[in-house]
């Protein structure tokens, strides 16, 4: 009995193959070289699945050498052509990698600079709405956040377009302090990047 439960009972039908996917670029590891984050993927694989890393990356080198040898033996013109193509591919992938790295860097910088503005807008005497902008730069989904706040504060909460074309979350009532805490805790935004603003709406509405 115990044996049966520990060892999986061999079923009559073939089981699904379990494929390992790269933790960095989510592709099967053999395709990492095309993902643009090849270096990181390689490190990840080396840590997580050393045997697979060995197999994949030594194989790549061997196959490269093989290609070189074979083509050299067959015809000189063909070999230069394939080497050219290979070089081009290599250059291409290097370029892609650099681009991806740069993009990532820029995204990180953007994130560091991006501020979340929590505006308390006076709607009527003693009635306020809270408008929060800049959340999307910190990887929060506006729609989901709006829904969450609506539930949390038991008020209306929606995503609205501002005059400048961007989108913000508008919550009924003055919830600026709670929202401040929420953004810092749940939203994982550093407190330096959150700003509370008081805003008076134009009179005569």
């Amino acid at each position, binding site marked *: 009995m115990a044996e049966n439960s520990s060892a999986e009972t061999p079923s009559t*039908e*073939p*089981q*699904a193959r379990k494929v390992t996917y790269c933790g960095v670029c*989510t592709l099967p590891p*053999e395709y990492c070289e*095309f*993902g643009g984050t090849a270096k990181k993927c390689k490190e990840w694989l080396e840590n997580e699945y050393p045997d697979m890393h060995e197999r994949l990356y030594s194989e790549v080198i061997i*196959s490269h050498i093989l290609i070189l040898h074979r083509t050299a033996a067959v015809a000189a013109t063909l070999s230069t052509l394939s080497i050219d*193509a290979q070089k081009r591919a290599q250059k291409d992938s290097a370029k892609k990698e650099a681009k991806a790295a740069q993009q990532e860097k820029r995204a990180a910088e953007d994130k560091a600079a991006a501020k979340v503005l929590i505006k308390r807008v006076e709607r009527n005497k003693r009635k306020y709405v809270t408008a929060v902008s800049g959340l999307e730069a910190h990887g929060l989904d506006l729609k989901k956040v709006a829904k969450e706040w609506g539930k949390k504060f038991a008020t209306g909460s929606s995503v609205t377009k501002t005059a400048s074309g961007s989108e913000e979350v508008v919550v009924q009532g003055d919830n600026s302090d709670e929202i401040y805490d929420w953004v810092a805790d749940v939203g994982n935004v550093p407190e330096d990047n959150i700003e509370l603003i008081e805003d008076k709406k134009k009179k005569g509405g």
Partner: protein
Amino acid sequence: MFKKDISAGAKSKVKSSAQRAIRTKVVETYPLLAPHIDEIIPKKSQLDLLKLPDRVSLYALDNEPLFWQHMDDPIIPHLRVVHAFPTCFSRIGIDRGAIRFVLSGATLMAPGLTSKGGRLPESDAELQEGEVVVIEAEGKEEACLVGQLKMGTKEIKEKNKGAVIDSGHYLGDGLWKLTID
């Protein structure tokens, strides 16, 4: 087809009768999958239907995408399903040079299949236009693209020119990166 990152729309449960219909449809399109269908879509399971942009519907089970379908085109498996059951689909191969283009979402062109590294079925097992094929790559174990043929394999060999698959699902595209919650 999924070149841009996509976000899933409304998620709804599939009626059990509709689910049965999907099952039979899948088995019909992929006869080789018949022995495994209980493993992919167990009889007593609840499929979800997600609406994706461009009138694509995605069938998922326990937040795992399984199949997608564009309007009334054939049901096409998600690449993770292809990876789990690679032998159950019609497969052709592309050469090494074509991989990077495929993975950046380009249309698959005939020369990538007819060249030395490519692989097409023998003349006794030609694939017809409109059939769903899985594309494997030279020197790689896993498939990198799945889609509908725009040209029969015989025509590909004869012409050696033109688009073969133009709206498939490839590794790292929006559908691949899609997470359902």
